[in-house]
């Protein structure tokens, strides 16, 4: 076997050349809050990578949002938004590494830090003028503003997000002799209800996918544990309270009344009318509603269950808007788009068409906003009420964030799904591994 190693010097030279000529965005172009001039006659084009555009239930709403911007504010000010559907939430990474123009990304929360470090995303304070930021943020729930902050700076503005709630199948509840209008409030009650449903109807009583990746944190936080330490330098989910929370879940999962499968499979089962309760994002509500109407049953909802009398702590799912402007005119263009989609009109569309929470809670009572919608879909009030207790989902620190997410989710899934596994051991090991990765 001959490996011609004499190419090595040439190779090194070639590599150096490639590395140096790598075009475009260097990782720290801090443009300061200098806004460029926009010209309606000469519109600036910006690209918007969105995964909602690839999900059939969310596509029409997102399309509507973007089109409306392009037709109104965009036309007026001179901005054209080109949307790119990113089904796997990986496309933007691949395109950035391919040198393509990626200006705004509908970015999931958990991996924001690694994107910030390696993909050139900027803090809002660094690229948008302070007075504009302040003015725009009025009316947004302060808790919600915190969701995308890292070390005090905002790298992402919550865009499409929601909190987890429990959906109930009214018909199955009634068949089991339970009252859907008086839903379970604690995990104990959830367990009891699910067993009853299974016994009475033969259908699974409860569903929460072990690899869901965010509601898990709600569980841990609700029991008084922490996931990520305050100083973001270590993880702490393997504390006694954390372990206790996961053990409760494991017990629930393995008691014979829980539905197995991924998030989408469990949701599918619920929509088919074969599941008593499911914990998932409100974004799925419109789908659930339609399915229930077709199936002849009613959807009820309730907030996240609590551990005993400790109030539940929901975390956010969904996405935020992360930006990478590389010129002052891009700054201005991007800011226009963000103002629109996170403004009153934007959230009206997002909530009513797609199903996420309105960041601007005042809209719920605004007749020009979402009042009618909320009246017709009272389940949203549950979500809005939970907003007061929301804590940010962990934005994993460092450039190995993706690996950390995998390690965390894997450990949780393993703990919950393995009948004779030692939850404490699995979680402690994972905590050690993740702490090593953070260093």
């Amino acid at each position, binding site marked *: *076997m001959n490996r011609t190693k004499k190419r090595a010097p040439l190779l090194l030279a070639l590599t150096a050349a490639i590395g140096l000529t790598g075009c475009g965005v260097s990782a720290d172009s801090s443009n300061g809050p200098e806004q460029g001039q926009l010209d309606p006659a000469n519109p600036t084009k910006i690209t918007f990578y969105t995964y909602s555009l690839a999900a059939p239930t969310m596509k029409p709403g997102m399309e509507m949002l973007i089109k409306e911007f392009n037709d109104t504010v965009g036309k007026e000010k001179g901005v054209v938004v080109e949307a790119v559907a990113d089904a796997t939430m990986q496309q933007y990474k*691949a*395109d950035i590494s391919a*040198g393509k123009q990626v200006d705004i990304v509908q970015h999931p929360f958990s991996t924001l830090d690694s994107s910030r470090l390696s993909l050139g995303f900027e803090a809002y304070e660094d690229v948008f003028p302070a007075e504009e930021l302040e003015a725009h943020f009025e009316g947004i729930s302060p808790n919600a503003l915190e969701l995308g902050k890292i070390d005090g700076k905002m790298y992402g503005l919550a865009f499409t997000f929601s909190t987890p709630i429990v959906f109930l199948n009214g018909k199955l509840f009634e068949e089991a002799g339970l009252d859907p209008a008086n839903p379970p409030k604690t995990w104990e009650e959830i367990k009891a209800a699910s067993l009853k449903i299974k016994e009475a109807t033969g259908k699974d009583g409860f569903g929460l996918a072990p690899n869901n990746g965010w509601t898990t944190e709600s569980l841990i936080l609700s029991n008084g544990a922490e996931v990520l330490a305050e100083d973001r330098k270590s993880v702490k989910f393997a504390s006694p309270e954390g372990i206790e929370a996961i053990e409760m879940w494991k017990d629930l999962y393995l008691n014979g009344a829980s539905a197995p499968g991924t998030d*989408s499979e469990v*949701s*599918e089962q619920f*929509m088919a009318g074969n599941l008593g309760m499911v914990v998932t994002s409100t974004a799925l509500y419109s789908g659930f509603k339609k399915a229930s109407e077709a199936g002849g049953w009613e959807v009820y909802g309730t907030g996240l269950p609590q551990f005993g009398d400790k109030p539940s702590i929901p975390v956010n799912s969904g996405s935020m808007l992360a930006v990478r402007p590389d010129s002052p005119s891009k700054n201005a263009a991007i800011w226009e788009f963000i103002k629109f989609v996170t403004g009153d009109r934007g959230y009206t569309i997002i909530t009513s068409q797609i199903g996420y929470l309105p960041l601007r809670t005042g809209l719920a009572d605004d007749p020009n906003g979402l009042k009618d919608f909320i009246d017709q879909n009272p389940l949203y009030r549950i979500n809005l009420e939970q907003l007061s207790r929301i804590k940010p989902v962990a934005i994993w620190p460092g450039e190995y964030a993706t690996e950390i997410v995998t390690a965390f989710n894997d450990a949780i899934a393993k703990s919950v799904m393995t009948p004779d596994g030692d939850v404490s051991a699995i979680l402690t090991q994972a905590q050690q591994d993740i702490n090593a990765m953070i260093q």
Partner: protein
Amino acid sequence: MKKKSPIAASVQHGLLILMCLIAVFPLYWMVNSSFKNESEIFTSSLVPSSPVLSNYTYAFEQMPIFRMMFNSFGVAILMTALQLITGLLAAYALVRWRFRGQLLIFSVLSLTWLIPFQAVMIPNYVLVNQMGMNESLLGIVLPFTVSTFAILSLYQSFQSFPKVLIEAASIDGLSDFNILVKLILPNIKSSVASLGIILFINGWNEYLWPMLVTKKMENAPLQIGLKLFVNSDTNMWGSLMAATTVSCLPILIIYLILQRQIVDSFVRFGIK
């Protein structure tokens, strides 16, 4: 010689029929499901009671199927053509002349076959991006312009061609290139055709690289487009099956026509 007892015969047939069922049933189920309407799709009926075409129309709406089919054909044909051309030239060189380094080159080529694509995917990805060829057919085809499998197979085919004829032609003044094209090629047509079929099927089924290079449905081959559809749609199983059926059609049709050839080609290249 084993006597053919009826028991033995029926066992043989039984086994084969079972195998065939296992091989073909999933396909049948796919087609079956593609015609079922929304309420029937979750049942186990073997034939749809009221077949619908809506799944197909939905699939065609959601994906630019014809465009993707065109991409798949383009990729497969280009790859096959390029691999055959480079293979023919290279194999000819190895057979026709003796020269220094022949054994070395031959060994290296044999070993190249074993290199998994994952070992070279990163640099190729970077290179294609720098050349600006991502999202293009050429970008998909470039890393696959040479198939060492093709070279080695053609080498064998050439080996079985009588050398005396070559030498006679050479003495007659036929140029080397013409010897390849006018003398050898016409006589090993069936081997080349068989090889071409295998290369075409491989090109059609290529997965990892097209997935890295194309992310938009319009630029993707059928398979990758289908994958985007598979991942985004969890509820529309009927349409998914319809889309899958359509994705299988071209290759199945080709198979039906050339079936004997195809099976024989794989066999021939395995035996040697």
